[in-house]
């Protein structure tokens, strides 16, 4: 059962009809019915192309949150070998919203850290919908430091609505944990390649996304606040999320123009969820290329360049 987003409704109708006709054809073997189904499919494909050629920022936000979009665990399974998850912050708990561990990417040992949202009710609850608690950030800090000590490059996969706004999370120092995680990103002398594969939700995303190279999938979003949150604060109306998404400049294209991200990874027609394997492959290739480009750089030089990159950020506005 495909999950259709609200703006994909015309597409759902076309594809639904085509599927019905095919089911009918399977029973009665009428040739013209098959022909009609094919025509509908072609029409659906045109519609898909038309819809995705001009996605609005709000529609992109919906695509970025699509339940069938490849998640961190999918990338880990498909891209890496010898995946060895490492758990815990050594202080309080293991946060299942953040996964981390050693793995090999095309033979090269890397430290993988990422947010995991889960794919069904059970796993979503287990993963807390990808919203990390302080333990998650402290696990990431621990793993980044480990990677730094042993010269292992870090690959982060960003996909979170934001850090978890809960009572315990606050009591255990959510802000301090995020601040330290960002600080660790800016301190370790190994390459960091960050890929925003879904939602880059505010401080919860920055904590891992402060890398040498920042990649972003075409329809991913990266923002200081969710469009809904921004709408309810600035418009005093959460229903104004379309306007807010527009104003926030949270799309890959805008962020690339602002110099916040370095590279856009194209998605298959109709978004990552329509061809998960191709998306994962494309992200993997991009990460490998970026890691190769960072090869052979000394730790001090890497750290200095990374800090310079962030200090210089925002000194140029949107190109006219």
């Amino acid at each position: 059962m495909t999950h259709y987003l609200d703006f994909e409704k015309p597409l759902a109708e076309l594809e639904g009809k085509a599927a019905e006709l095919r089911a009918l054809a399977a029973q009665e073997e009428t040739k013209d019915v098959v022909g009609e189904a094919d025509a509908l499919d072609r029409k659906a494909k045109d519609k898909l192309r038309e819809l995705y050629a001009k996605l609005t920022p709000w529609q992109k936000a919906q695509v970025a949150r699509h339940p069938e979009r490849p998640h961190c665990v999918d990338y880990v399974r498909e891209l890496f070998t010898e995946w060895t998850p490492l758990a815990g912050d050594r202080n309080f708990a293991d946060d299942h919203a953040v996964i981390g561990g050693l793995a090999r990417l095309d033979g090269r040992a890397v430290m993988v850290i990422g947010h995991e949202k889960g794919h069904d009710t059970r796993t979503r609850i287990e993963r807390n919908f990808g919203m990390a608690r302080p333990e998650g950030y402290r696990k990431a800090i621990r793993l980044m430091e480990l990677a730094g000590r042993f010269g292992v490059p870090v690959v982060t996969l960003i996909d979170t609505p934001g850090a978890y706004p809960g009572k315990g999370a606050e009591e255990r120092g959510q802000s301090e944990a995020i601040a330290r995680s960002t600080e660790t990103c800016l301190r370790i002398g190994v390459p960091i390649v960050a890929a925003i594969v879904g939602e880059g939700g505010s401080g919860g995303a920055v904590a891992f996304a402060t890398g040498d190279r920042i990649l972003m999938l075409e329809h991913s979003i990266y923002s200081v606040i969710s469009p809904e949150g921004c709408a309810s604060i600035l418009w005093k109306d959460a229903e104004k999320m379309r306007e807010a998404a527009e104003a926030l400049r949270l799309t890959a294209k805008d962020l690339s123009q602002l110099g916040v991200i370095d590279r856009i990874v194209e998605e298959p027609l109709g978004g990552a969820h329509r061809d998960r394997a191709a998306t994962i492959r494309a992200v993997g290739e991009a990460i490998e290329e970026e890691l190769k480009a960072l090869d052979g750089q000394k730790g001090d030089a890497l750290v200095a360049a990374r800090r310079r990159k962030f200090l210089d950020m925002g000194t140029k506005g949107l190109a006219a």
Partner: protein
Amino acid sequence: MNWITNFVRPKVNALFARRDTPENLWTKCPECGTMLFHRELTKALMVCTNCDHHMAISPRDRAASLFDGGTYVEVPVPAPIEDPLRFRDQKPYPARLKEARRATGQHEAMLVAEGEIGRTPIVAAIQDFSFMAGSMGMYVGNAIVAAAERAVERKAPLVLFSAAGGARMQEGILSLMQMPRTTVAVQMLKEAGLPYVVVLTHPTTGGVTASYAMLGDVQIAEPNALICFAGPRVIEQTIREKLPEGFQRAEYLLDHGMLDRVTHRKDLREELIVITRMLTGQPPAIMAELPPPAEPAPLVETPAGGEGAEPAPGPDEDGTPPAKAAE
């Protein structure tokens, strides 16, 4: 019952209305309701003399009360691109900025100053909640970087007073990027071996707490200041339960190990002098009003005397309390 309220209330209202005073002379404490005379309140550094409630103090008043003799020099902050995203909600962002500038008389949400506290040179960065909720955008980021650079240049500690609703949404992702930017500024200080003291004031929330405001070598907060990542309202909506009394207030954070100290505003200056001097390997400061230059200092034996001289060792080194000697 209705006839009596109708009958009485207008008269009561009229009575109060007639007693209405010009706003700038009296301030009502939002906590205990005491009416405070402006001169008294200013003298008490905007702390209620009845219930010790800490009200907002302007960055300039804060700087004047912090530095020796109220003297400081402003450190210039490089101007960022204004309205980098050409952001527009119900009003365009430049209009909001203009409005905030008119209302506060300030250019932006942070003041960077350098001067001496107890004859200890420091750089101070003071955030202004009254300016667009103190929100962190490119300017605040530039201010913190400028403050750190000046501190490194002068080999002086940086004291930062935080107060913010979080990131400035009108600068979108660039406001978010101030989290790593300001973190780099903090790292400059750490690598130069300079103390970075954070004083969290009411309220400090969101991306500000989750970056430079939580990375201090020493973390001090003013009493009852709200300090959090996610605000109490957001949390109540998420977990659908009432939060405990005092949740996310300074004392609560102190209890949970997130702060070093909670300090009354009147004691802050002295405490900052003590801490920064100890961390920079200097002898104790003279903890009294420095003698006016014209009068001979009775206890402190200053070899050369006069204004410019280095402070001599503390007055109580020989065990004589300074008050006695002054009599």
